[in-house]
């Protein structure tokens, strides 16, 4: 009962905000609808019993990425980002025209198709039972797996993040002639 309600609410939030994000005229509003979508996805993770992933989703995307996006919009500055809306087929206001939507549709079609093929192979070996499994927290499992089977991935991820940090710092560093103590 509870899981069904949670799933419905999260799914509605996810899909509704995603649609609203696409048709919003204002890029700031789009960012906020994206926030709603991301929270909805966190709710979906909870219905799957993946508590750690759900909270990670909230922490990294809601608290970090969205704020970064808002900052990035402020970086572009000016009034231009308010209501810079194109129209899809001349009807619906949307962030893109028919070409961008066509390409996006094609890409997502290919992506979903490939996912289906992948999942089909995985699902073959899994027995489907109707009974709900009891919820066991995933934290300890993840922690132990990170320290045993996936220890290399754990260590390499820190190197990857170091690379990302250095790259970000270099790209965002102001050039010498533009620094005059702004």
């Amino acid at each position, binding site marked *: 009962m509870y899981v069904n309600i949670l799933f419905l609410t999260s799914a509605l939030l996810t899909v509704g905000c995603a649609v609203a994000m696409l048709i919003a005229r204002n890029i700031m509003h789009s960012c*906020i609808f994206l926030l709603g979508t991301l929270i909805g996805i966190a709710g979906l993770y909870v219905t799957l019993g993946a*508590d750690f992933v759900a909270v990670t989703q*909230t*922490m990294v995307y*809601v*608290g970090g990425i969205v*704020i970064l996006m*808002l*900052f990035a919009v402020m970086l572009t500055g000016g009034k231009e980002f308010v209501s810079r809306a194109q129209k899809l087929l001349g009807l619906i206001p949307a962030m893109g025209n028919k070409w961008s939507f066509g390409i996006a549709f094609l890409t997502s079609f290919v992506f979903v198709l490939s996912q289906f093929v992948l999942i089909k192979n995985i699902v073959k070996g899994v027995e489907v039972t109707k009974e709900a499994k009891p919820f066991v927290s995933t*934290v300890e499992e993840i922690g132990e797996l990170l320290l045993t089977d996936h220890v290399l991935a754990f260590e390499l991820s820190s190197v990857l993040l170091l690379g990302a940090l250095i790259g970000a710092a270099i790209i965002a560093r102001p050039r010498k002639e533009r620094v005059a103590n702004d």
Partner: protein
Amino acid sequence: MNTTIAEYFLSFDVFRSFVSRISLWLGTDVTPFIVFMIFLLGALVITLVLATVGGFGTYAERKISADIQARIGPNRVGPYGLFQLIADGIKMVSKEDIAPKTADLFLFYLAPFLAIFGVFSTFAVIPFGSGITLTDLNVGVFYLVAISSLVGVGVFLGGYASNSKWSMLGGMRGASQIISYEIPVTLSILAMVLLSGGMSFGQIVGSQGAFPHQWFLFHNPFSFIAFFVLFTGALAETNRAPFDLPEAESELVSGYHTEYTGMRFGLFALAEYVEVFVVSGVAVSLFLGGYNVPGEEFGHSLAGQGAQATVFFLKTCALYYVVIWIRWTFPRLRVDQLMVICWKYLTPIAIFNLVGCAVWLVVFDGKSMFELFFHH
């Protein structure tokens, strides 16, 4: 571990037999419904209590600041001005709601909601007692840190949507300050997770004791420093002085909520005062022994729960007093000092503490300083 308030109530035989009798009478199992009602009632009570605490926060702030500055403070409404918060509430509700003409209305109306949502969602995991925790999630502390970062988005949007220069500056400062100080706070919390061996509040509080020598504050020298890192970071995350740059009244009028009037301003203020209580509560749970009272059997009974909640509230209010005291003691920082303190002092110190705690745990096998000195 992993108990909820409903499980606590259902652990009493009296209550269980009551539920089963109703189930028999109605012919269906009503336990899920009862569980839901306990959660709902508990959530309502905790919301009510914490909202009142937030209201009293404004009163305490004015009274204590008056005390520090040798004034009297609010003394007209009720005895000692105690009903000031009711007067303030009525005033908030009955003020006109004005939005600037040039504002982005959608975001302008949404911003206080994000702040309220981010703060109130944290109540679900705050441990008032071993039974009086709405739910003791396995990812408790982590959830609290994650969901309260929504406040940062709210502050930024409040500043942005007003389309006023003061608000915009305050919002930008606020968002960058809140996200920056989240790092040292998270790293300090991580050190405590390391020492207690779990992320749930029940685990963290449970591995401490009622007396100071059992607290994580005095567990080892690193955790002692970590407490101050966490407390400083928490001050900055809640925009309290000396880190009140986002709403610095002498330079930015009122910062990100300059353009807000009436109830919308009230909701921002409520979120802010309640958040101070929440972060004080987190600091108490992580470092100052939380709700622990002496005696394990006693703690489980209803009277014990009352004692636990009282202990928790007393410690948290003491920290709340320190927060207000600090406000009237230290001058405000400059923006560049703010960033330097976060990235060049607090973050390296927090990492040092984390490493120290990890090494201590391995070398001394998880024993605290006290155990090492006095027991062999």
